[in-house]
């Protein structure tokens, strides 16, 4: 590997085996990028055209009542895959997040009665204007997945409170304390890490721990998820683990060629280190189908230390959001 290589084969081996998901062998991984404590390995793979992306196609129509969120697929054609744990923020309104993914046909409006409020004590309902979306921080995603189907808008408040407390913030069920007030810092992750051309997925690591795998149907869909994933789903944990700047240790090379070789060696070692952070797959991976639309199947994945949801079509992966859990 030269210092310039950005499409490495070394990490290709990461994807099929450790996560135990069928269909991953069609994907390949690239050179890991790092920003503070957050490492992102870009993933390329087969596109599945015709899936409506979340920002340009999917809209929050309204919040019917606390814990009840209505989404609408406004596209004229194409099914929308609702991203797992998507949430919406709007000033002076109850911010909500969903506990599961979903498949919405073109033109369809669906009410989710098991949404969770992420802002304790804030009055008002979200309306479909002046809003931006996020994905729940990875620390909350396992619990949110387990709470799917339970109609209790306050069900995530204890976990949000604990998360805030762990981060030295006031003990409240306000996710807004992190997402909005730290937005200027968190949103830098979308520049600190670079979305690669054609990229439709990523592996995320916080520190030296696997944090999640995200695969989208195509690069456009992934690009629309980029900010929500790097800044909020995984950026929050990385923000709290931001390392102190260290003094630069000079490379040993005594010529330009020597320095180039040192740089390449260092990067190869880095790729190997990242590969070693993948979780070992011990035990079964269980897939439970949640819903289907034509040949698309939405399933919940559970495995040792991993949870998430995937969408498959004829045993081929179309969408995946699988993350470290407990």
């Amino acid at each position, binding site marked *: 590997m030269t210092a310039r290589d950005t499409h490495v084969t070394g990490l290709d081996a990461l994807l099929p085996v450790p996560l135990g998901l069928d269909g991953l062998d069609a994907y390949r991984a690239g050179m890991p990028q790092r920003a*503070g404590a957050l490492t992102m390995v870009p993933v390329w793979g087969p596109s599945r055209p015709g899936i409506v992306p979340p920002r340009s196609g999917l809209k929050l129509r309204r919040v019917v009542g606390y814990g009840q969120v209505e989404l609408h697929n406004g596209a004229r054609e194409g099914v929308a895959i609702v991203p797992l744990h998507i949430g919406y923020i709007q000033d002076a309104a109850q911010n909500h997040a969903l506990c599961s993914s979903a498949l919405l046909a073109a033109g369809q409006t669906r009410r989710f009665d098991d949404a969770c409020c992420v802002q304790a004590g804030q009055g008002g309902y979200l309306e479909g204007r002046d809003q931006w979306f996020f994905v729940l921080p990875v620390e909350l995603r396992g619990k949110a997945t387990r709470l799917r189907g339970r109609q209790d808008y306050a069900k995530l408040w204890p976990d949000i409170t604990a998360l805030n407390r762990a981060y030295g913030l006031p003990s409240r069920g306000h996710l807004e304390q992190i997402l909005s007030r730290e937005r200027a810092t968190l949103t830098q992750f979308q520049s600190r890490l*670079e979305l690669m051309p054609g990229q439709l997925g990523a592996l995320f690591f916080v520190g030296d721990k696997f944090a999640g795998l995200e695969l989208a149907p195509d690069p456009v869909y992934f690009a629309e998820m980029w900010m929500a994933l790097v800044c909020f789903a995984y950026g929050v944990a990385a923000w709290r683990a931001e390392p102190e700047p260290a003094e630069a240790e000079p490379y040993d090379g005594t010529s330009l060629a020597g320095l180039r070789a040192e740089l390449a060696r260092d990067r190869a070692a880095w790729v190997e280190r990242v590969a070693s952070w993948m979780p070992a797959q011990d035990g079964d991976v269980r897939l439970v189908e949640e819903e289907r639309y034509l040949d698309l199947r939405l399933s919940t994945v559970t495995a040792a230390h991993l949870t998430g949801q995937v969408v498959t079509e004829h045993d081929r992966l179309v969408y995946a959001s699988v993350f470290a859990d407990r």
Partner: protein
Amino acid sequence: MDTPSLLQHFRTHDTPLVLSRGGDLAWDDAELHRSAGDIEGYALLALVPGALPWQRARVLLRTLAESRDGLDDRARATLAKVTRALLFGLPPEHVITVLLALRRLRANHKHVTRAALAFVLEHPDAGELIEARRPALVDCFEHALGKATARACARLVRAGDTGSGYLRRALLRFTSDPATAIERVRALYAPGTHGAIAPQEPPAPLDPVREHTPIVTPTNRGDIAATLVHLYRGGPAAELRPALAGYVAEATRGLPRLPANVAMVLDTSGSMRGYGEREWAVMSQAVALQLVLDRVCDRLTVIETGDADARGPDPVAGAAARGLDLAAGAGAGPGGGGGGGEPRPVGATDLASGLLDALESRPDLVVVVTDGYENLLPGDLARVAAALPRAGITTPVLLCQATFTRGDDLTLRDPAPALPGRPFWHQDDFAALLPWMFAHCAPGPDWIKAAMLARLEGGGVT
């Protein structure tokens, strides 16, 4: 003279010159100023935009306090011009402090006399200054001419003399406007006015007046970048490119050529594109700097550090290490993918490899222009830069962070803190950025002298 260090000091060390009640002069960096050789270059360095007023006052003090014996006519003429620029380009209180310090130092050179009289008699705000600072200005005036001569002149003026032989020899030969000078002398020795307020602003500011906009947008950061933003957005190249060439020519008019090989490591990663309302702003300002350097440097080698392999089929945008052709792609802008010459930002940020590539051309200077987000991998640039001395490479390497506004938080955007660095966000920043950059390479000090002389002679400085 260590030009980069001195320039950095001029830009950052903002303590005033202090004259105690007893007249003792205190300046904590006197040794640094006194040790700067090449008095002509030292004086011209004070004119570099961004030098702090109290630093410029120190330069005025030193250049006036020293004898000019042994200097050739050209150097004397330069010093005279710089002196005049500083006299009227500094806040008046700063100049008064300098003139009083010269009195305390008993500096009695002819050039001190001329400077003091020019300030007291020819300052556009002399009327208000005399009202507010009469005793101090009388001291300066009497130091310039000698107390007895000054008072004799004042008596003659009070008596109605406007041009006797004595008055001409003693006073009026130092001024080009005898009538005004006589009025000033009359005012100097007239009764004072209690509570008059001295003017604070210089009549001829040394630095260009900057545009202040309450809201920064991608297109109000200078004409070059604004035009590039429109090109990136896919605007009509046939209209925009000639305008761009004109703006670059305007920005570089009067600047001397730098006889040096400069390598620019240009971050063309995806983050340079920006997003939302800021889209294209940072990339455009970085390219604006590239265009200006291309006009000024004898040789500019550009190494793009985005993911060239990932750019796809655009052969123009994928080319690395090339110059820009302002006339390129007259049919379409880069945003439309029609062959424009501007770099297309995409992919990850590998600044370390870019630096190594840049050094291959054995440049006199390497300038790394980036938004500061290094992700392949963070710390690599710093490690390579730290290793250069051991590899026998002494080429100066600088870091220029392209930002959206002057208030951007750069905490997470400094990929190599040990490298000399400066942020820039507006075309107006180039006036200070170029001298700072060039100061680090061997031909730089002469370039700065030539550029500042051109400013003096071109009307940029009074």
